[in-house]
């Protein structure tokens, strides 16, 4: 089994090969062929990941060095992979969920032309490759390569239907907002390089342990670096203030939303901070800020999700909100809880997205939940699995979401009761809007057109099978993190992660834990009831209050950004182009030329042709010269 680590490079390589095969050969590829290549390559990675995971689980971890990527002076950036608990866990999530979504996509994207179909799979495989690179990299640079790579794939996939200008705009927005975060990431990275000269996680970790660390790094340095990394994470993981790209990113095909914008890519920020936990533990101010940003994001996104009518938008805001929860966990120092939530969230959010894709598929592309309703009878599997997803996300025991969210809430409670209250509120909102979505979609009467009604049908097996698998995972996925209070010697996940993330024993009585769990469960159930009460017989056209309109319009954040940043920049660029460049700088350059020509035109009139004037000028200059020589220069 030792050899399995030596094969680790196949994990990212397989999807890359799949991507290249699909991408370059797309003209000669049939749909099924492209689908097979895409899915099987990820399946291969998944199998390898499982083997790696098992090996790691038996207590091994290793940094495998391939070649030196960049070597300048004393700075060496190796191209090497780190196989340990954290990365192997993420490997499983990425390849596992990724494989399911590939399978799902073969059916979902079936209406595309073969070459576009292959292009889609090429992008999707490329994404998996990049994401794997991100989590496998043993240093910040390789991580960054993957980090940017997933950004690129996200861009490509959001703009997959490139004929639609709105979609390509969303793609650009996603990439650019990510780049803002990337800049912060890079600056942090440069900072580390400048101060320590190393980039590897382990190298840096051991550097942090050394005594020279405190000589070179001041508290400010640490705070700045951690803050910058966090800003990088807010870009990728859609936190305040850089979250607005994620809802727009729903322009991409639904499986993409499931894979990239729910299960994997957006959790890269959490991965980054969890990876750097040894540094963050030294930066209490940053952690505090992270917790608040996460909390506010969770609240804000949840509030927006309450009033959205696009099925995918609701899920998108829900994702933002859940990511906020994860950051909240990170901020309170519960790195393992955050990673736990990443995992469960990957299951149920992928499930929900794929379910919504199934709905959209059935509705012939309709995404407005006001025009749905009553689908539970027609789409039984979809309904059933979607329900499981909702329960899981709402945090009802014993579904997976309950345990991960409970771990977070417990940690927050220990950290700050105020934050706990707000977080609980956000969790309640989650339950409310998710069940609102469920009821509007599946309950009540069908509100669509007759034609749509006629065409309603359950999706093919390639779509339902992943739904079922994910549903099972959503149910049982949380059991790896059952808290000690419920099951002695449990929490295998935290134990598993302990080599990377030190276990923090929390001193809290069992009674308190019971009370917290009970409170949240009861309140969530109440919210579910409330949602059912309100939306079981929903009729569109109900007049909305100003507050709802505010929520529907997402607090006008996009508009504010546009007014505050984009438009001034655009105005400034136009001004620079037409005034600063053309009039001032080039005007000066041309002005010099014109001044020469002007003086040439004027100066030649001295040459009047009059001999008298010539002599006069000569005599005058002569007199002046003599005068200066004898009466001034003396």
């Amino acid at each position, binding site marked *: 089994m030792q050899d399995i680590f030596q094969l680790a490079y196949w994990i990212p390589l397989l999807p890359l090969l799949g991507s290249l095969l699909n991408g370059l050969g797309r003209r000669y590829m049939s749909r099924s062929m492209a689908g097979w290549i895409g899915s099987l390559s990820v399946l291969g990675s998944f199998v390898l990941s499982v083997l790696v995971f098992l090996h790691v689980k038996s207590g091994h971890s290793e940094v495998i060095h391939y070649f030196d990527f960049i070597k300048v002076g004393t700075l060496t950036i190796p191209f090497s992979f780190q196989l340990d608990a954290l990365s192997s866990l993420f490997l499983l999530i990425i390849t596992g969920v990724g494989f399911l979504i590939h399978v799902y996509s073969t059916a979902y994207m079936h209406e595309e032309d073969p070459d576009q179909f292959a292009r889609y799979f090429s992008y999707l495989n490329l994404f998996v490759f990049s994401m794997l690179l991100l989590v496998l990299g043993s240093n910040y640079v390789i991580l960054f390569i993957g980090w940017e790579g997933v950004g690129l794939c996200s861009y490509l996939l959001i703009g997959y239907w490139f004929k639609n200008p709105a979609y390509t705009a969303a793609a650009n927005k996603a990439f650019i907002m990510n780049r803002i975060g990337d800049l912060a990431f890079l600056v942090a990275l440069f900072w580390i390089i400048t101060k320590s000269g190393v980039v590897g996680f382990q190298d840096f970790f051991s550097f942090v342990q050394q005594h020279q660390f405190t000589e070179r790094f001041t508290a400010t340095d640490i705070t700045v670096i951690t803050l910058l990394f966090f800003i990088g994470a807010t870009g990728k993981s859609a936190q305040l203030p850089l979250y607005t790209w994620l809802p727009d990113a729903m322009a991409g095909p639904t499986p993409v939303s499931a894979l990239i914008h729910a299960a994997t890519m957006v959790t890269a920020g959490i991965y980054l901070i969890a990876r750097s936990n040894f540094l963050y533990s030294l930066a209490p101010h940053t952690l505090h800020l992270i917790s608040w940003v996460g909390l506010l994001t969770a609240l804000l996104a949840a509030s927006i999700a309450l009033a959205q009518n696009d099925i995918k938008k609701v899920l998108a805001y829900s994702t933002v909100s859940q990511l906020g929860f994860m950051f909240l966990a990170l901020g309170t120092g519960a790195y393992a809880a955050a990673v736990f939530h990443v995992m469960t969230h990957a299951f149920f959010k992928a499930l929900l997205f794929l379910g919504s894709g199934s709905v959209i598929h059935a509705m012939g592309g309709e995404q407005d939940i006001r025009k749905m309703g009553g689908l539970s009878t027609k789409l039984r599997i979809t309904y059933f699995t979607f329900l499981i997803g909702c329960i899981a996300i709402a945090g009802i025991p014993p579904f997976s979401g309950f345990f991960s969210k409970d771990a977070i809430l417990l940690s927050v409670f220990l950290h700050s009761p105020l934050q706990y209250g707000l977080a609980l509120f956000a969790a309640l909102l989650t339950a409310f809007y998710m069940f609102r979505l469920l009821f509007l979609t599946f309950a009540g009467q069908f509100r669509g057109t007759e034609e749509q009604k006629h065409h309603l049908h359950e999706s093919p097996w390639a779509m339902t099978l992943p739904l079922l698998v994910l549903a099972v995972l959503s149910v049982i996925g949380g059991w790896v993190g059952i808290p000690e209070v419920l099951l002695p010697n449990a929490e295998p996940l935290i134990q598993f992660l302990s080599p990377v993330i030190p276990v923090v024993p929390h001193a809290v009585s069992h009674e308190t834990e019971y009370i917290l769990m009970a409170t949240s469960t009861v309140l969530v159930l109440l919210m579910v009831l409330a949602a059912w009460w309100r939306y079981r017989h929903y009729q569109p056209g109900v007049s909305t209050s100003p507050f709802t309109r505010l929520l529907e319009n997402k607090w006008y954040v996009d508009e504010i950004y546009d007014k505050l940043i984009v438009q001034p920049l655009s105005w400034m660029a136009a001004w620079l182009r037409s005034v600063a460049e053309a009039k001032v700088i080039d005007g000066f350059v041309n002005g010099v030329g014109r001044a*020469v020509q002007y003086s040439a035109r004027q*100066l030649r009139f001295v*040459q009047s042709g009059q001999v008298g004037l*010539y*002599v006069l000028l*000569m005599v005058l200059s002569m007199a002046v010269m*003599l005068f200066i020589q004898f009466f001034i220069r003396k």
Partner: protein
Amino acid sequence: MNALLVSALWGVIMMFSGVAIKRMNVVRYVAMAGVAILIGLNVAEMKGWHLLAIDTTGMLAFDHYALLFNSTLLLAVFIYLVLSGSAMERIGAHCADYLALLFFIICGLLMVSAFESLLILFLGIEIITIPLYILTGSDKKNLKSNEASLKYFLLGAFSSGILLMGIALIYGARGSFALSGVADTIRVSNSLMLSGMLLLLIAMSFKVSAAPFHFWTPDVYDGAPTVFTSFMATVVKVAVFAAFVRLFDRSFALQINAWQAWVAALAALTLFMGNITAVFQQSVKRMLSYSSIAQAGFMLLAVFAMNTTAKEGLLLYAATYSLATIGIFAVLIRMKDYSFEAFNGLASRYPWVAAALTIFFLSLAGIPLTGGFLAKFYMIKAALEQSVWLVLFSLVMAAVSVFYYFRVIQAMYFKPVGQTDPITFDPGFTRLLIGVAVLLIVLGLFPQLLIGQLYF
């Protein structure tokens, strides 16, 4: 000295050949032969082989530099005769007489680079200018030629008066006309000396057309028959520069503090006036006369710096500037219209002529690979040790010069053929022109070929 005698003699021969020989091109060949003989004599004298040893009683001293300078000038004259000599026949019936005058002028040229006495300087300058008044006015029916001649004459005579006053004042201070006056040290700041020197400076500035004493130049060069403008603007001008340098180097070395700043000021003003005014000219001929002023500004840097580099550089400058300008004028003479538009599309019809012209203009602008660059390079190098600001200013002005030189290149290469009346360049002429261009490039790559002769 031998060349001086022979050139006077050859002038007389030319006078009579006009009567004896009916075919004008034969007369021209005689003239070319004369120049060739002069070159030979000069070179021979450089090698220390004198045909006639003449005692000049300290009036003239043909040192190595003077001989080399003269040989270079004579070579330029030879090329001038070959390229443009035929154009003299078109001016009037006195072609042989023009050539005779040319030889008398050469006589003066040979003197002013070797004078040891202010008297010879004066005589030399007069021998140069008096025939030039006539050559300027030789196109008698042409009012412009008349006007140029009269202007040149009046202003030239006036400046001769200044020159003489200067010489008289110097004589008063020194008691001698010899260049290296007796025990000058005590008279360094003598006001008589200073005023005489300043007047000489002014007179010489006039002769080399340095601003603000340059006003005659554009009008005279413009009005004179082009073939003589070519001669005046090149050979004559650089020879007078040699006299200028010799005078101030040999005679006023001790007073350098007094005149150096003036030369700097004159150089700056000349560069400014010449370059700036040239920018807005409509006629290539007139542009070239302003350009000659601008180039004089650069040559003044040699006077300003007055060191070995400067003298070497002046030699190179004389050669490259003369060759390039003679080449351009040779083409210009063959054109009916001197405007920039007349050059439109020349490159497509006569690519070789255009290429040669391009090299000439690049050389004048001081673009590397051409001799003109190295000439400017030497000037800058010489002057940089004295004043950075002047050098910077002259460099900026060199950039301005690109403005007008490149107008011709633009017309030749980038503009469509405009005019209809055809210009013809016979193949022999084209080949010669190419030869001159190649010579310029050779000088630009291996200046030692010329400057190295100084040290043999």
